[in-house]
């Protein structure tokens, strides 16, 4: 009776990505469906399979971020959109590594409306990586508290047994300190702060 829903269209995929209980299934679908064709582009353009996997991970993170910010307007198909991100991230990477003769055609985008998003992704790729490094230096406990509270939507009460603190106020104080610490780390570098603003707020 409890028939399992499957992803059979771009609309389904977007719906699944926006549902916390189905998000992982949607990501797995993206890997199963799009990794192979996208990886061929990388390996045919001076990249290794490891490069293809790393770029694909960036592509998926960027895509989900855009979807969650309600900035993917479906003016091009998911497939076309992912291909564009993949191609442009890889050309950018080659340029960064100095392995690519400069090509004016590197931003061969397919849909004008989506150009802006993809162009933005390229500009902000580096700040995304820098942000991940900052999160890694935040400390395991702080990372866990902030992740559970702001990403997994745990309440302060839910966090209490996870952290083993005496009462909710202690958890609240700890969360406050962690968010403040993160805010200070981000704010330390003005340039990074501005780049991050672009990345996260678009």
């Amino acid at each position: 009776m409890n028939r399992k829903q499957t992803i059979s269209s771009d609309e389904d995929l977007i719906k699944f990505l926006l549902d916390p209980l189905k998000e992982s299934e949607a990501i797995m679908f993206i890997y199963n469906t799009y990794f192979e064709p996208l990886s061929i582009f990388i390996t045919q353009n001076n990249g290794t399979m490891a490069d293809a996997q790393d770029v694909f991970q960036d592509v998926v993170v960027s895509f989900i971020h855009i979807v969650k910010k309600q900035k993917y307007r479906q003016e091009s198909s998911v497939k076309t959109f992912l291909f564009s991100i993949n191609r442009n991230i890889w050309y950018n990477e080659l340029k960064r590594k100095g392995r690519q003769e400069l090509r004016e055609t590197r931003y061969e985008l397919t849909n004008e409306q989506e150009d802006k998003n993809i162009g933005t992704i390229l500009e902000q790729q580096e700040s995304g990586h820098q942000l991940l490094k900052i999160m890694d230096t935040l400390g395991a406990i702080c990372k866990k508290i902030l992740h559970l509270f702001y990403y997994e939507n745990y309440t302060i009460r839910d966090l209490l047994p996870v952290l083993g603190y005496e009462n909710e106020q202690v958890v609240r104080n700890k969360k406050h300190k962690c968010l403040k610490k993160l805010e200070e780390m981000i704010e330390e570098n003005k340039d990074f702060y501005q780049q991050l603003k672009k990345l996260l707020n678009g």
Partner: protein
Amino acid sequence: MDENNTLDIVVIKYLDNEMSPEEKITFEERLFTDPLLNSRLERFRLAKEAVKYHGIHQQVTGVRAIWEEKNAAGKMVVTSKLTSVRTMARYALAAAAVLLVFFLIRGLSGSSYSADNIYQDTYIGYQLSNPRSQNNGLNKLEAAYQQDKFQEVVSLGKQDALSPKDQLLLAIAFLKLNDSPSAITTLQALEQSKDHTYQQDAAFYLGLAYLKNKNYDKALVLFTRINKDASHLYHKQVTDKTLRNLESLL
């Protein structure tokens, strides 16, 4: 310094949606006229967004790990097929017949392999080392657990300081009472404990709790780790079949 801290507390309260409607209106009115408040809000909002971005990255990394393992296994199957196509062909008909019978049985029973089935197949009770007849060396919570009085275990578990062993028993009691969210939070706390004695137990029962709570992807991540680690206490409990069945739920 204190003034800034008070301001930050208010900003975070707003950001976390923990203000009353009246407080919210007052705060939002103040935003129009207070640039400092605006600036603090923007900075904390950015920090919150940063956590969310990091969360997406973590989630994709987790799925990528599972996908890579599945992919590696798939490649091994392909290699094996290439080297033994003839042998495989000989068994193909027999395998098809077995599968046909399997699907017929499943079809007739009207149910696919459910999360409950996987749970029942994988679950193993945690046995206290003391013999059933001797309660002398057991504390109250352990004694209640020993006698399958799980509601009593939960009541006793409300005390402040629980040992890692008591935390494990409490989590299993939650599982027995079908309270998987409480089992999850208790086991996550145990996993974070500095005492690593019960960490492998915690991982196994956390996988079960995720399964019961329909967090199949999280259960799969934990069970895959246990399945790959031959030295894990619960390695034999989590078979390749367990993983395949679990994957079919995703």
